[in-house]
């Protein structure tokens, strides 16, 4: 991007995202995304490779536009979802942060994550992923234009949502 962003700044940005999820400040977390943001968790095919084209193949989650993410937040905070009530507590571990490319209007970064979720009925769940981000600057602040989460444990024990990955 024109005023270059250091990898330390990108890492701090991702740590802040993680903390907002862990502290359940989902409203502030949503503000980190652009209005047209894509949130994508590909599924795998029966050949055990991640699906690559959301228009023609199935995904765990494919949301285009922040309203779709807002609906997910609305649901888990509504109290009406048994799977989200009680809401599991999480600890996001974010590591291996790298800037992969830096273009004129956006940069691409990647990170590995491991998220430990715990709630009393189900106990502990650990989901590990490699994440790819497209970050843009909007009115001086970094925003997430795209977040792609590739889960290691694609055979799911129970269920997961945006805040447990």
């Amino acid at each position: 991007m024109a005023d270059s962003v250091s990898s330390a700044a990108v890492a701090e940005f991702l740590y802040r995202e993680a903390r907002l999820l862990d502290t359940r400040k989902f409203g502030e977390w949503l503000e980190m995304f652009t209005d047209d943001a894509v949130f994508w968790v590909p599924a795998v095919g029966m050949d055990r490779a991640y699906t690559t084209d959301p228009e023609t193949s199935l995904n765990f989650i494919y949301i285009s536009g922040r309203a779709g993410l807002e609906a997910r937040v609305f649901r888990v905070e509504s109290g009406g979802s048994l799977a989200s009530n009680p809401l599991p507590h999480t600890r996001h571990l974010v590591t291996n942060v790298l800037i992969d490319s830096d273009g004129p209007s956006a940069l691409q970064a990647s990170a590995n994550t491991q998220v430990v979720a715990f709630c009393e009925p189900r106990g502990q769940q650990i989901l590990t992923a490699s994440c790819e981000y497209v970050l843009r600057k909007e009115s001086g602040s970094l925003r997430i234009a795209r977040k792609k989460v590739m889960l290691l444990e694609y055979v799911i024990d129970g269920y997961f949502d945006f805040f447990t990955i």
Partner: protein
Amino acid sequence: MKANGDLRNRRSFADYIDDRPERGIFRVDRSIYNDPEILEAEYRNIFEANWVFLCHESFVRNPGDFFATHIGRQPAFVVRKADGSLGCYLNACGHRGATLVTARIGNTSQFVCPYHGFCFDTGGKCIAVTAPRTGWSEQRLDLTEFDLTPIARLDSYRGLVFGSLNADVPTLREHLGAACALIDIWVAPAPQELEIVAGFSIYETACNWKIMHENGPDAYHAPVVHNNFAQAVTYREKRETRAGVTKTDTGRLIGRIESASYDLGNGHTAFWHKRRDPEAFPIYAQRDELSKRFTPGQMEWIMGRGRHMTIFPNLLMNDLASTHLRTYRPIAVDRMETIIWCIAPAGEPKEMRAARLRKFEDFFLPSGMATPDDVAVAESAQKASFAFDSKWTNMGRGAEFRVDGPDAAARELGMSPKASTNSWDHEVSMQGVYRRWLELMERGEERRRG
């Protein structure tokens, strides 16, 4: 571990089902969800003694294509043989029993065991062993000793492949019975054929398989458990404009709508509900073309009715939130594995396919906005099944609305269910599931006793 103190007094499986139709009473003893001995008997008498769903034919379209799965406890794989016919073999090398097929899906001209290198053709014949001359005399080496074990029966209906480890079963057509009319309209709208869309999901749930199997025909829970789904998509659709096929029809979750449910016989079930917004479904775009090929009655089923069907014991298909096919198996008395695919008419326009997928991801999958709540309820019911002093699970709802045979809607389709009721939220079809369960458990034990 004995789950319940009075197991030693068990006389028959009939003790677990309190079925008194004259009084409209139907109850199931909850220890069938947590008793390991019951699961052993179910493996023996249900999953490994009758037709079970294996896969879709598109997984094994060309010679050498294979798909690995399970029949009850037993690992098996389906393969398209060199002569074009289908085979299904237990997935254990005929020599020392290593797992022969380790991929879930693939294509090969021969299967090579990873342990000692024995080779098998797609017809299950052992065609080569490692170092034959230094281990056997020429007279003694008989490769047929190592041939793979085929399953007893294998057949398909409209692309759905079923198998049975027991030869003494009726034909697949007889087994599916009334369900065939429903399967026909699932497959028929496809201009070419039904496609299993790329990408799938496997998830494990900490409950007995029957709790989730019951949740299929149970529409009574939908407006309760999935009210939050309806609220969430309503919230979303206030914040972004959606039209046509990108809209979500939540009519079934927020208010009374016309519906019906069916005991299809042989433990199979179905229900439908009237769609409030048929335009929200991808198939709507094909209505002109389809109306040339189908009767008005069939068109009402295809366009106007959300549909759900379970084939006992391990197949679920529905066209409610989106179009889906699911199979499942018990892996322990309190644990099950579910595999789920999106199904679609092959060759549908790209924007219809994308809309179908987004609807699917919204509702289903362990990451959807509805399936996790089904899983959470099922797991809570598993825990509560240990409340032995409150031992009956009650499935009597709608008993007085039961009529033998088809209702008007079923007649439109040419479907002949065992019984119909006038609401999708009745529990009558579940009674059919447990009557079949009991029939198979008793028949299996009789066979065992000789």
